[in-house]
């Protein structure tokens, strides 16, 4: 059995006592195949009983043990020490709490902000069967119907995507990837009847259209859920349901229109079309400075060669 000494650098923090977070180092002999969670358990049982973290199922199902390992959010129970060794195995493995959530102590974060956002955005099925008739009549979901939301139902609310999200990092009020995923999942559940209202809520400020599509949520989802596909689908749904008044929707519409008109994006009027006249007023100083450097987009873009072909495609698709 392969075995080696590995250093672990673990963030410690008790907000009631400590001014700022600090790090403790532990050097432990570890066998190949050992997970980060077993290391944390070992440290708690043998070396530092005050080390605080959350864990339960030890099998990647309950989602409670997510931490950042070497800067990336992961489940401690499914992450092997050997896969995290860098610098020829000599660098310490850094273990920190999830980002974008309040730290209760050490590696333990408060997940309540996520739960509260789910509550505000109706993250549950609103069925067509009235409450009093519940339990008397089956509402079956076929395999094909379930397939649409199959991957999304794998979400274990571990909080990794919440921790990795670029927008969450700069706006705590942002709706967040797990809530958008849950919205997609509920809106595509054939038993649900409240898609309109749910989508109206998530397209409000700090909502659906604020996603920067940085794909960090997808990249680091512990259950490999294509979260961005769900977000894409919700944006499509906003158009299908005619919820096109938001800046984000107007922005998307501009790309659609320009491709038909010239085949090129007309960037010069993009702020105006996205934000409206008053909204884009604040951009004038930057536009002037860019003009001095010759960086302003041209007033009129050229039509691509054979634009008629593109328009033909549009006409055919609109039929």
């Amino acid at each position, binding site marked *: 059995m392969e075995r080696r000494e590995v250093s672990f650098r673990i963030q410690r923090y008790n907000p009631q006592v400590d001014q700022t977070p600090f790090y403790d180092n532990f050097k432990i002999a570890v066998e190949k195949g050992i997970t980060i969670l077993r290391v944390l358990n070992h440290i708690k049982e043998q070396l530092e009983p005050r080390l605080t973290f959350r864990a339960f199922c030890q099998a990647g199902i309950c989602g409670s043990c997510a931490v950042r390992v070497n800067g990336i959010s992961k489940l401690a129970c499914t992450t092997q020490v050997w896969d995290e060794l860098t610098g020829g195995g000599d660098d310490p493995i850094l273990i920190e709490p999830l980002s974008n959530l309040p730290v209760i102590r050490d590696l333990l974060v408060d997940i309540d902000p996520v739960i509260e956002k789910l509550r505000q955005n109706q993250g549950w099925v609103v069925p067509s069967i009235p409450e009093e008739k519940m339990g008397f009549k089956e509402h079956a979901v076929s395999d094909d119907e379930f397939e649409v939301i199959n991957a999304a139902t794998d979400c274990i609310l571990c909080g990794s995507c919440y921790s990795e999200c670029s927008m969450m990092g700069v706006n705590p009020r942002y709706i967040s990837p797990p809530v958008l995923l849950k919205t997609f999942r509920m809106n595509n559940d054939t038993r649900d009847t409240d898609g309109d209202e749910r989508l109206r809520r998530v397209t409000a400020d700090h909502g659906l259209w604020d996603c920067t599509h940085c794909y960090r949520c997808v990249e680091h989802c512990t259950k490999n859920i294509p979260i961005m596909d769900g977000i894409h689908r919700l944006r499509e749904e906003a158009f299908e349901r005619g919820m096109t008044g938001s800046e984000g929707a107007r922005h998307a519409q501009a790309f659609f229109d320009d491709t038909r008109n010239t085949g090129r994006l007309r960037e010069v009027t993009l702020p105006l079309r996205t934000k409206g006249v008053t909204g884009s007023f604040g951009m004038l100083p930057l536009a002037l400075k860019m003009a001095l*450097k010759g960086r302003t987009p041209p007033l009129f873009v050229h039509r691509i060669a054979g634009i008629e072909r593109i328009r033909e495609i549009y006409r055919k698709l609109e039929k």
Partner: protein
Amino acid sequence: MKFAYFLSCINESMTREVDRSIESLKKDLDIVLFKLEKGACCGGSNLDYVSPEHFLVINGRNIALAEQMNLDLVTSCSTCLLTLRRAKQILDSSPDKRQFVNSFLANEGLSYTGSSDVKHLLWVITEDLGLSRLAEKVTTPLTGIRFAPFYGCHIIRPSQLLGRDNPASPSSLDLVVEALGGSLVEYPSKNKCCGFHTLLVAEKESLAMSGNAIESAIRAEADYIVTPCPLCHTALDAYQPKALEGRRVSRSIPVLHLSQIIGLALGHSREELGIDRHMIT
């Protein structure tokens, strides 16, 4: 080496220096680029929200134009890269969707088959040209210049679609800098988001993202940020004064395109490469 070159909208407007600098490099690097004059805007990962069918047909057609020339399709914009590769993945995995798209392309004599790859200029440099050949061509090594490589998102994530760099610790751009004789600084933002795509819908938040990246590069004492994406460039350069408002940093930092640092190392002038067109110089 011959490629079809996808014309990105932003490189015809705000970042015209990208195509200009690539133009001046082609001969040195022995790369022939055939401009895809008939190619249409990829939709900037926005078109599909309005209509997934339009997104698929327009981008299937873009790739089919390169297939007609028997060439791989190269772009120097990371969002064009992601958008085109998303369409390619959908079409390559579904005969029905291919048939659907081809029904719109037939009267133009085009057909999508999946034979052309879609690549970023950075990949052409690291894979088709190769780092050792790039290093051989250096005439003015960037010795002593410290670069903060900024990858941006759509060239590394989602990795299942892009598949070159490890998104947690990308290295391809670092290797290009080293091949050109430059030095690297360690800083925490190289794989973070520049915020470009929400600049018009959530400006404050986007500027916080670009500001974080710019500030961390300055704190790491980099001389330049370098990026392979013109959208990242715009968020980091044009918006830099705004992004740094209220931050305690001692200076600004110029941002260079991938093509410009290669151009500098190959002995081209700043004027030729359009570096003086940047907002921060």
